[in-house]
C-alpha cells in the first residue's frame, strides 16, 4: 500500500475511507502485526496512552474548571489519528469522542490544511452540531500534534458549559425555534496559534456567554488536558520510536473494529431486532414563536439487523420529522450516541475507539429529526429526543444476550436523564447567578437480566454517572437552595427485577431580586417504549412548583414544612406551604419568573423493569417498600404482595393474602384481555374513526411522508387503503 504520509490530509482521509470500503479493515490492515509479535509491548503502549488520557481528565479539572465540570466531571479527552479516527479515550462524557472525530474530519475535508492552515501550535474550537457536535453547550478544543514537523495525530477535549449565550440562560434551552437562538456558535474555527488562544477570540467568547468566568475556566481546563495528552504522546514516541507508534495507532483502531465484530458473534444471535421509542414536546399554549405553538411527538423506530457474517446495522427508517424546537439532532450527534452505547455494552472492556464505530453500520434518515441536514434549525437540546431513541438499543441487544444465555449482560433500558433545572437570576446584592443544574446525571438504570437496576446512578452519555454534591450546586446556583433530595417512590419500572429508582430534589428560591427557571422531561408519554419481557416502563415526570408560599413564616414559627412529593395522591406541597401550587403533566416548561420563597420540584427518572412483576419474590417487594422505592398500595396492586406492618413500622409478607392477591391479578388479566384479533380490530378503528389527537397524527404523517417503506408497512399492518393519509391542521 502507498505511503500516506506524503499525501495531503484530505487525500489521506479519502484514501483511508477507500481502503476501509475495499478491504473491510481499518486502513486495509488485516493483520495486527505489532500485537502478534510483541503483545506485551503493544498493550503497554495502549495502556500508557489510555492512562495519559484518564490522567489528563482527572488533573485538568482540578487545574481549572467550572463547577459543573469539576463537580461531576462533564468533560473528556481523546487522541485521534491524523485522519481523525479516535485511538484511545479518557473516562467522562465520552459520547463526544466521536463528535470530535467528525469535527476534525470536517476541517480536513474543507481543506483547512491550506486555509486557514494546520500547523504546530494551532488551536481549534468547535461547537456546531451540524458538523459534529450534540449541542452548542458542548465545546471542543482540538490541537494537531506534530512530530519532527509531521502531523501525526490530534488531541481533543470537550467540556459542557454552564451557559452558551442562548436566547435563554442555561445549557439545554427549550424556548428556541431556530439556530439564531442557540447561542454562541464556533464553527470549527482556528482560535489560536503558537500554543496560545488569540486574545480577540477570548474577548468575543467571554462576551458571548452569560458566565464569562466559567467559559475561561473551562477553556483553560480543555487546553491543559490536551497539552498533557500531547506531551504523553511525545513521551511514548521517544520511548517506542515514531514508526512503531504510527503503526500502533492504526492497529489499535483496527483491533477495536475486530473486537466489536468478535463480540457480536460471541454474544448475540443473527436476526432482526425491532423496537420504537417516543417523546412528547407539548408546546401548544406555551410557545414563544407562532410556528412552535403546537404539540409535537417524536417517533424513533429502531431496527438492528445482525447478518449471517455478524455485520451489525442500526436503522431508524420511519423516524418523524424535525421541527421549530431545539430537540433536532444532527447526524453527528446520533453517531456519537450510537458509539457511546456500544462502548457501554458490547465492547466495554475492549479497545474503545472509532474501530467499533466503523464496524457499526447505521442509517439515520435524511430529513428526519435525527438527521435534518438543515443548519438553520435549533439544536440546543437534542438530548430530549436522542436519549429516548437509544434506550431501545440496550433492549434490542439484551434480547440477543438472553437468547445466547449471557443474562449477566442484559439491561432493559435506562431512565431519562431529563429535568435539568435551568435559568438564571440576580441576587439581592445585584450579582448574576446561573441555574444550570446537572444532578440529572444519575437516574435509574433499567433492570438487569439477573438483578434490579442501579438506583439513581446512571447516565447514558456519561458512564461515570454522578449527581454531584448539593453544596456545590448551591455555590453556583446561589439563589436556589436545597430543601431535600430523596428517592421518589413508584418511579422504578415494575418487573421480576425492578428498574433502578428515580429520585427528587426540592429547591427553595432564596435571596433573589429576580429569577427565571425552566426545564424539560417526558410527561405525556413513557420515553423508552417499555420494559423487557413483561417489565413495565418507569414513571413519567410532571411539573410542580409553588409560588407565593408562606415558607418564611412557617420557618419563623418553627412549623414543619413538606420535604417532597412522595405520593401525589396524598400531596402536601399543594396546600402544605400555602401559596399557589402549579401541577401539570407537561414536564416541559418555558422560562417563568420566580421570587424568594417559591419552591420548585425536580424529578429524576427511574429505569424500566424486567419480567412479570408477579414473579418478583415477595421478600424483595418488602425491601422495596422499606426503602421507599414503592408505596405500600403499589406493592399490593402491581406486585400482588400483601404487607403486614408491626408496631415498629416494619413491613412483612402476609403469605396467604399474597397468594390470593396474585391469583386475583391473574384472573383479572384473563377477564380484561381479549384475543389478538379483537384487539387488532379495535385498534384499527381508532385510526379509521379518526380518534387520534393532532400530535399523534402529525407524527404518523411525518413518518409516512419521509419513508414510503414505513408508510407501506403501517398501511399494510392495519389493512388501510393505499391512498390513506392523516388529515392535519395546518402547521
Amino acid at each position: 500500500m502507498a505511503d500516506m504520509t506524503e499525501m495531503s490530509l484530505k487525500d489521506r482521509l479519502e484514501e483511508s475511507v477507500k481502503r476501509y470500503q475495499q478491504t473491510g479493515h481499518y486502513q486495509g490492515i488485516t493483520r495486527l502485526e505489532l500485537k502478534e509479535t510483541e503483545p506485551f509491548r503493544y498493550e503497554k503502549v495502549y495502556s500508557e496512552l489510555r492512562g495519559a488520557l484518564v490522567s489528563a481528565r482527572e488533573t485538568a479539572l482540578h487545574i481549572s474548571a467550572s463547577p459543573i465540570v469539576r463537580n461531576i466531571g462533564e468533560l473528556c479527552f481523546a487522541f485521534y489519528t491524523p485522519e481523525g479516527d479516535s485511538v484511545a479515550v479518557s473516562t467522562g462524557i465520552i459520547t463526544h469522542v466521536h463528535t470530535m472525530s467528525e469535527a476534525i474530519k470536517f476541517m480536513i475535508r474543507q481543506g483547512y490544511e491550506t486555509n486557514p492552515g494546520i500547523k504546530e501550535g494551532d488551536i481549534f474550537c468547535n461547537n456546531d452540531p451540524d458538523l459534529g457536535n450534540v449541542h452548542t453547550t458542548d465545546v471542543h478544543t482540538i490541537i494537531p500534534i506534530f512530530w519532527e514537523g509531521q502531523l501525526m495525530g490530534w488531541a481533543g477535549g470537550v467540556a459542557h458549559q454552564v451557559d452558551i449565550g442562548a436566547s435563554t440562560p442555561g445549557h439545554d434551552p427549550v424556548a428556541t425555534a431556530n439556530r439564531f437562538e442557540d447561542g454562541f456558535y464556533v464553527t470549527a474555527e482556528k482560535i489560536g496559534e503558537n500554543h496560545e488562544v488569540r486574545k480577540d477570540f477570548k474577548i468575543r467568547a467571554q462576551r458571548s456567554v452569560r458566565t464569562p468566568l466559567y467559559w475561561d475556566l473551562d477553556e483553560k481546563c480543555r487546553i491543559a488536558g490536551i497539552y498533557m495528552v500531547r506531551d504523553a504522546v511525545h513521551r511514548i514516541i521517544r520511548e517506542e520510536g515514531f514508526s512503531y507508534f504510527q503503526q500502533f495507532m492504526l492497529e489499535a483502531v483496527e483491533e477495536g473494529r475486530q473486537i466489536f465484530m468478535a463480540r457480536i458473534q460471541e454474544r448475540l444471535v443473527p436476526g432482526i431486532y425491532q423496537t420504537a421509542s417516543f417523546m412528547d414536546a407539548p408546546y401548544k399554549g406555551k410557545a414563544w414563536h407562532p410556528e412552535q405553538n403546537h404539540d409535537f411527538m417524536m417517533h424513533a423506530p429502531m431496527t438492528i439487523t445482525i447478518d449471517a457474517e455478524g455485520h451489525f446495522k442500526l436503522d431508524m427508517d420511519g423516524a418523524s420529522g424535525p421541527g421549530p424546537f431545539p430537540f433536532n439532532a444532527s447526524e453527528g450527534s446520533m453517531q456519537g450516541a450510537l458509539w457511546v452505547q456500544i462502548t457501554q455494552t458490547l465492547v466495554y472492556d475492549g479497545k474503545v475507539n472509532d474501530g467499533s464505530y466503523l464496524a457499526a453500520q447505521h442509517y439515520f434518515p435524511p430529513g428526519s429529526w435525527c438527521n435534518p441536514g438543515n443548519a438553520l434549525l435549533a439544536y440546543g437540546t437534542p438530548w430530549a429526543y436522542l436519549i429516548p431513541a437509544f434506550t431501545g438499543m440496550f433492549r434490542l441487544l439484551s434480547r440477543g444476550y438472553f437468547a445466547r444465555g449471557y443474562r449477566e449482560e442484559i439491561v432493559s433500558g435506562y431512565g431519562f436523564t431529563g429535568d435539568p433545572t435551568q435559568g438564571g437570576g440576580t441576587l439581592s446584592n445585584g450579582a448574576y447567578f446561573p441555574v444550570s443544574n446537572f444532578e440529572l446525571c444519575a437516574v435509574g438504570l433499567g433492570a438487569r437480566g439477573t438483578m434490579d437496576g442501579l438506583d439513581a446512578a446512571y447516565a447514558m452519555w456519561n458512564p461515570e454517572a454522578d449527581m454531584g454534591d448539593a453544596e456545590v450546586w448551591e455555590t453556583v446556583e446561589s439563589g436556589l437552595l436545597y430543601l431535600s433530595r430523596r428517592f421518589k417512590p413508584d418511579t422504578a419500572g415494575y418487573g421480576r427485577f425492578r428498574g433502578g429508582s428515580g429520585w427528587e430534589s426540592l429547591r427553595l428560591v432564596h435571596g433573589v431580586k429576580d429569577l427565571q427557571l425552566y426545564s424539560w422531561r417526558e410527561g405525556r408519554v413513557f420515553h423508552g417504549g417499555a420494559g423487557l419481557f413483561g417489565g413495565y416502563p418507569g414513571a413519567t415526570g410532571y411539573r410542580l412548583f409553588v409560588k407565593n408560599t408562606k415558607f418564611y413564616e412557617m420557618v419563623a414559627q418553627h412549623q414543619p414544612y413538606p420535604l417532597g412529593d412522595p405520593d401525589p395522591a396524598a400531596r402536601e406541597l399543594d396546600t402544605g406551604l400555602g401559596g399557589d401550587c402549579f401541577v401539570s403533566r407537561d414536564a416541559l416548561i418555558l422560562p417563568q419568573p420566580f421570587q424568594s420563597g417559591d419552591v420548585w420540584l425536580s424529578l429524576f427518572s427511574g429505569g424500566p423493569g424486567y419480567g412479570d412483576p408477579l414473579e418478583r419474590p415477595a421478600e424483595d417487594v418488602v425491601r422495596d417498600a422499606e426503602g421507599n422505592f414503592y408505596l405500600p398500595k403499589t406493592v399490593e396492586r402491581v406486585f400482588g404482595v400483601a404487607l403486614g406492618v408491626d408496631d415498629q413500622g416494619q413491613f412483612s409478607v402476609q403469605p396467604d393474602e399474597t397468594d390470593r392477591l396474585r391469583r386475583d391479578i391473574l384472573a383479572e388479566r384473563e377477564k380484561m384481555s381479549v384475543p389478538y384479533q379483537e384487539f387488532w380490530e379495535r385498534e384499527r378503528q381508532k385510526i379509521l374513526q379518526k380518534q387520534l389527537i393532532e400530535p399523534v397524527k402529525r407524527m404518523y404523517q411525518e413518518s409516512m411522508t419521509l419513508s414510503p417503506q414505513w408508510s407501506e408497512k403501517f398501511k399494510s399492518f392495519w389493512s388501510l387503503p393505499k391512498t390513506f393519509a392523516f388529515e392535519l391542521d395546518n402547521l
Partner: protein
Amino acid sequence: MANDDENKKTVQALISGELPWAEMKDLMSGTKDPERFRVVRSILQSMVPFPEKILLPLTPHLFIVQKQSERIVKCDCGYEFGDYRTNWKYFSRVRVRDSEESLKSLYHPDQGVDPQWMELREFYCPGCFRLLETEAVPPGYPVVFDFQPDLDSFYRIWLKEPLD
C-alpha cells in the same frame, strides 16, 4: 467434571436470579464461556414440562422449539403460539390500557401517560396469563415484532451445529 458441575450450578443460579453479586461480577468481567448457550439450553430443557427440543430461548417463558418438522414458539406452560417467523403476539391475549381508569391502577396520573398520547399494551400467554411483553406506544401503532432470529445461520454458521 467438577468444573462442569460447578459451571452448571453457577449458570443455574444465574437463570434463577439467585447468583450472588460477586460471582455475577466475575461472569461480567471474565472471558465468556463459549459453551454457555449449550449449558443454558440444557438447563432450560430440563426445566420445561414438554419433550420438544428447545432451539432458542426468546423470553423467560417463551422458547422456539422443534415440533416434528415445525419450529414453533412455545410457552413453558405448554401453550403453542405457532411458527416462530410469525410474531407470537398475534396468538396472545392483549390488554390495552388506553383510559385514565385502566392506567391508574399502575401509575398515579401524574406519573403515568396521557392515554390520548400513549397506551400501554400487555401481551399475555393465553395458557397461563403470564405477562410476556409490554408495549408503550401511541394509539394505532403497529404491533412490534421484537425479535426474529435467523436460526439457520445461527446454528449452521455460528454454532457449527446441525439444526435438526
